[in-house]
């Protein structure tokens, strides 16, 4: 793990779980897999604190454990999973767009608590929704369960690995740690939950409802569910591809691509290089209802998409009116390249971007040729090339003419290695998010006194309003915060918002680059 990643993990753990968990977590990330007592000894914390921290970390799927020989249990931290904590708001917002408020709250509860049983989730969400609804109305448990089942059907929620139930009871001592297994087929099963009741007053309604036999008591489920982050990532990737097609071509072609992706959501695994081939007839049948384009027009669009140099869509056969696939890896590579190009453009200017695109296109090119092809004066071209070279966006490839590699008789070619440039950019993104978080914490700490004062004033105002105070009194209390202080608070709020929004933005870039690097590494 690079230093930048470790620093970012440390900041995230500290912000969300406190210093003790942060110390243990960072120690595990740095040193790899370790048993309990070694952790306590190396970090200098008491055994109980370490146990507390490990319970929290394992609950949130940030640390996993393994039983080694002689009964020693070793704990290992998942650094990449810690970095996912940056993306929680995006997951929750996506669920909101797909499944409205109920789904949003379900995923939020699952993310905040790591893993939960279905009955616990349903109860919590229903209670929260009841609070926000008008007086007298309560949220039906069945509705929440239905949304939960739908989330599980589309794989957004999955079962956690659980203790295998052994048929014959083992007379020997129980193992020091359970080996958790999960069957692929069972990943998305949802237990039949017959929860009757609405909102908070569940227990009383059970007794109130006359004629309900006791046997209908709600069964509590015991297996835990967690949010399936990979499925969310798949969704984000699909979204990125669709919007790229919409930007490049038009709305209709993006709808076609969206339909194709939707049809292959569950059939294609998330790491496959391309989707299953879909025939043009199938696509025509599955188009959304509002789109009434004729079969011919659809075929034309598909041909256009397949001929596009970006190669998002490929033709794999002619049966069924033409078999088309979406090249997921190629699409991710194009998206990563586009990210790199846009970074070069924003950082160095559009001329640099032109040179960058030229080198990308020609793969290997000499300096003299750069000046000719890009039509930029030699001095400026040189300067820009060196700038990009020094920032590691480009690299030099040496081709010797003579076996002694003499510098005067060697070709030096500029080239862009997308994988290494993407890695470099990803590393920079981690550093920048760490800087953003630190700056935000610094700003908040600077104005801590003022923030506390304003919170207290708000609390006083709220309590006075509740007990029915007059306007004049409220006015007086509000004036406790002077005008320059108010301005300071405004500036602070604006800055913190800007920093937070930047974090979210950088996280989107991180997602694209990480997906690209992951799929390229898998291919190799």
């Amino acid at each position: 793990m690079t230093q930048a990643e470790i620093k970012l993990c440390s900041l995230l753990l500290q912000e969300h779980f406190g210093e003790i968990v942060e110390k243990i977590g960072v120690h595990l990330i740095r040193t790899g897999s370790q048993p309990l007592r070694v952790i306590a000894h190396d970090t200098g914390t008491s055994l109980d604190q370490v146990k507390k921290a490990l319970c929290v970390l394992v609950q949130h799927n940030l640390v996993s454990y393994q039983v080694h020989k002689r009964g020693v249990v070793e704990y290992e931290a998942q650094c990449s999973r810690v970095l996912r904590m940056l993306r929680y708001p995006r997951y929750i917002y996506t669920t909101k767009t797909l499944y409205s408020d109920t789904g949003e709250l379900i995923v939020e509860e699952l993310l905040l608590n790591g893993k939960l049983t279905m009955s616990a989730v349903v109860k919590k969400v229903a209670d929260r929704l009841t609070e926000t609804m008008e007086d007298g109305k309560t949220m039906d448990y069945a509705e929440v369960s239905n949304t939960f089942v739908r989330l599980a059907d589309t794989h957004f929620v999955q079962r956690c690995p659980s203790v295998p139930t052994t048929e014959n009871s083992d007379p020997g001592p129980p193992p020091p740690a359970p080996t958790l297994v999960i069957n692929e087929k069972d990943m998305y099963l949802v237990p039949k939950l017959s929860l009757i009741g609405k909102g908070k007053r569940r227990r009383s309604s059970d007794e109130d409802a006359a004629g309900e036999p006791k046997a209908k008591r709600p069964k509590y489920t015991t297996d835990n569910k967690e949010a399936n982050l990979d499925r969310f990532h798949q969704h984000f990737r699909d979204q990125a591809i669709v919007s790229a097609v919409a930007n490049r071509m038009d709305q209709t072609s993006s709808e076609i691509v969206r339909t194709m992706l939707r049809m292959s959501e569950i059939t294609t695994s998330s790491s496959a290089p391309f989707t299953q081939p879909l025939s043009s007839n199938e696509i025509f049948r599955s188009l959304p209802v509002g789109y009434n384009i004729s079969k011919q027009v659809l075929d034309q669009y598909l041909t256009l998409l397949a001929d596009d140099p970006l190669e998002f869509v490929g033709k794999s056969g002619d049966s069924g009116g033409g078999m088309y696939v979406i090249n997921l890896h190629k699409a991710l590579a194009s998206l990563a390249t586009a990210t790199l190009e846009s970074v070069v453009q924003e950082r160095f200017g559009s001329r640099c971007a032109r040179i960058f695109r030229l080198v990308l296109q020609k793969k290997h090119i000499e300096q003299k040729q750069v000046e000719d092809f890009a039509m930029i004066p030699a001095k400026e071209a040189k300067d820009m090339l060196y700038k990009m070279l020094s920032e590691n966006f480009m690299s030099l490839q040496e081709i010797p003419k003579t076996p002694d590699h003499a510098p005067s008789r060697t070709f030096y070619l500029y080239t862009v290695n997308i994988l290494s440039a993407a890695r470099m950019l990803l590393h920079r993104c981690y550093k920048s998010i760490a800087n953003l978080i630190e700056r935000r914490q610094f700003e908040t700490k600077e104005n801590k006194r003022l923030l506390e004062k304003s919170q207290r004033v708000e609390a006083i105002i709220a309590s006075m309003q509740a007990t029915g105070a007059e306007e004049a009194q409220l006015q007086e209390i509000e004036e406790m915060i002077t005008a320059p202080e108010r301005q300071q608070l405004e500036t602070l709020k604006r800055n913190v918002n800007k920093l937070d929004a930047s974090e979210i933005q950088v996280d989107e870039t991180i997602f694209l680059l990480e997906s690209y690097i992951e799929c390229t590494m898998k291919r190799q």
Partner: protein
Amino acid sequence: MASRGGGRGRGRGQLTFNVEAVGIGKGDALPPPTLQPSPLFPPLEFRPVPLPSGEEGEYVLALKQELRGAMRQLPYFIRPAVPKRDVERYSDKYQMSGPIDNAIDWNPDWRRLPRELKIRVRKLQKERITILLPKRPPKTTEDKEETIQKLEKEEEVTSEEDEEKEEEEEKEEEEEEEYDEEEHEEETDYIMSYFDNGEDFGGDSDDNMDEAIY
């Protein structure tokens, strides 16, 4: 070896590769050498692109800030215990520090965790902001209970489980005693833990009958 010093002395600016191939012509002025680290905040040539605004951006932003606040309130957020300072200060009562004892506030599924991680789960504490007077009579009995327990602990040869149980009980007693101490401190100036009600005196010397009892 011989050429190492020679290369440095012979001509200034001689490099190992042909300078023309890279593009620096003869007689071109080289950029000045850098003598200090690059500035911390270099002036930007191009202003950054504005952040995405709009309904989606603002919603996600609000969500992010809300999540941050919510996670601090969950039982998973473990605050480190504030170290005991030399003098008890008035502000200590109002500081949000972690509990000193070793229990967690949430109930994990122990079947899924290794056995060695099992910790006591703190039961929901009822409000301890009670009036002082009713607390006084029970307090002395609690004191007695605790001293008797301490004696018992010294005498018995206990197994691990028993120790754990007693530790738990003692901790519970300690917790209650802590709260009582706080409440009592408000009315007396003396630190309650220094108070010795003389019950240990007779008990300690029971073991050794050789010494005379004064």
